């Protein structure tokens, strides 16, 4: 049994403090409904943040996730609309979207490893390309789902819990096992911490890096399917905007290093929740419109600062 590390999970205390603070100021904040809502609202960025944690630990970055959410959601909706409103069609469309997402992640991985293009550049390019494709096919408009079956997925509740929340939690547990308990996970850390050492240890560095982008792509598809089915639509211009920033912020708040080698998905999970709590709190407390950005920024910086101070 490893010793519970305060610095690793100090983030949990930040979250609890934040929740107590909000609960005192607005009692409705701590109601069951609201807590579920926060989980629900957080899950879309949260799932992506879990994927991006792999990329960042391996020393990369993925700026394309926001536009990719729109593209993948649009693709899924287009496919469902094409194949008709049957269970088979929905399952098949989602499957196709996963294949496409994984292939795109693989492509980005190859471009950064074999093509030797910095991840920042490939994914920045991807961000522009995906968004522009989405805009082009919809002419700047909205993709609407004609399928009732598809649109019902995102609103599903299981045992009274919203489906996105369940997926988010399950996804985090799965990612935790993959990253902390498997050889692949150890390789991801090794590659990000010291590439040269990893090469000498006979780790297929390029392959590990590429796989992290595949994981990121799969995470994006998961989020995109949940989001687009919940909304029953994808807006070509606004869906997924700034998701990359929120996902990276969640990972960083959770203790993932921007320079690689360090981080964990549990931290990311709570980092994402902190962002969710902040967003919810701003609405609950009716914080003045213009000051919201400042409040958000201060809490993010404060959360990371607290963690760093604890570590020293």
């Amino acid at each position, binding site marked *: 049994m490893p010793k519970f590390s305060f610095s690793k999970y100090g983030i949990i205390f930040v979250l609890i403090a934040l929740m107590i603070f909000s609960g005192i100021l607005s009692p409705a904040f701590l109601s069951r409904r*609201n807590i579920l809502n926060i989980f629900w609202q957080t899950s879309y960025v949260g799932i992506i943040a879990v994927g991006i944690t792999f990329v960042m630990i391996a020393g990369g970055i993925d700026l394309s996730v926001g536009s990719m959410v729109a593209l993948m959601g649009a693709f899924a909706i287009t496919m469902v609309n094409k194949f008709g409103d049957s269970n088979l069609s929905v399952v098949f469309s989602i499957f196709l979207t996963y294949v496409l997402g994984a292939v795109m992640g693989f492509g980005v991985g190859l471009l950064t490893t074999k093509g030797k293009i910095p991840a920042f550049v490939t994914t920045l390019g991807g961000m522009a390309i995906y968004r522009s494709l989405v805009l082009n096919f919809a002419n700047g408009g*909205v993709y609407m789902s004609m399928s009732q079956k598809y649109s019902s997925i995102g609103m599903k509740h299981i045992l009274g819990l919203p489906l996105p929340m369940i997926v988010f939690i399950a996804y985090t547990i799965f990612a935790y096992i993959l990253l902390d308990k498997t050889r692949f996970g150890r390789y991801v850390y090794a590659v990000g911490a010291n590439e040269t050492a990893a090469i000498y240890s006979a780790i297929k560095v390029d392959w590990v890096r590429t796989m992290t982008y595949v994981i990121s792509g799969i995470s994006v598809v998961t989020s995109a399917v949940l989001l687009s089915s919940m*909304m029953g639509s994808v*807006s070509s*211009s*606004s869906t997924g905007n700034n998701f990359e920033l929120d996902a990276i912020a969640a990972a960083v708040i959770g203790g993932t290093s921007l320079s690689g080698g360090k981080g964990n998905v549990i931290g990311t999970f709570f980092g994402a929740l902190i962002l969710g709590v902040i967003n919810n709190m701003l*609405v609950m407390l009716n914080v003045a419109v213009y000051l919201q950005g400042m409040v958000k920024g201060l809490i993010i910086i404060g959360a990371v600062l607290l963690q760093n101070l604890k570590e020293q």
Partner: protein
Amino acid sequence: MKKVLIFVLLIVTILSFAKFRVGVAIPAADHGWTGGMVWWAQYAIKQYANDPDVEFYLVTAKEPSEQIAQVQALLAKGIDALVINPYESAPLTPICVQAFRDGIFTIIVDRGINSEEYNVYIAGDNYMYGYLAGKYIAEKLGGKGNVVVIEGIPSTINTERVEAFKKALEPYPNVKIIAQQPGYWSREKAFEIMQTLLTKFPNIDAVWTGDDDMLHGVLLALKQAGRDKNIVLVGGACEKNIVKMIMDGHPLIGVDFTYPPNMISTAINLAVMALKGEHLNGFYQRGIPRKIILSTETVTKENAKDYYFPESVF
């Protein structure tokens, strides 16, 4: 002498046969409404597809400096008219003024510039857009109730609308705004906010969203919470699906107010009219009016079909 005269006449004839070239510079689609504006610009340009006298250059920009560069390129190419929806007023002012001083017929659309040096300014009526929504909600509630405001991206346009909305509520002291939050003109964001507000407030009688895109998010949140009854909903700008709902007699959405993205089409037509020396029918003036504020029209079940453009993207 005679030779010179013939030469000059020749030049004049050639010039008069030359095409009118119109540059159209608008912001790129960053939410539903701007997507609509791009669509309507293309629509208007298509109308002139068979007109050999006019030629169009359409450019869209993601930020002010990009738009400045685009307008510079248009000026270098040589255009006779510029139709521009400035991305931001201040940074675009100098280049628009330069176009005007170069003798290019300059039409400013919607977001203004900080100068009077242009030929035409055409815009939507932000004040009435907010005011009519406020008045409708207050009257519909019978002068008493709790109102939620989900506004757009913080900006001058948005502020003007929200202030007007509040002005309209002033005569009704029992109509209270219980929450006011920015939804950034996004469905997802509006959904989130509404979900949260529904847990906070057991009694919400009306919701005003800065535009119809956000109204979709609110509708979804209400449906999910099972509170899509006895509530007055007003959006704005006439997104086609909302107009369709009004047309079909939606129980919660009774009206919508125009802020037409097709003002860009109107501006393009005005530019062509000006270049061809035409004037507005019924006006005693020969020239095109210099300032045009489009009225905010009220869309109800009765007239909704006139505002329903199924093939438009917005």
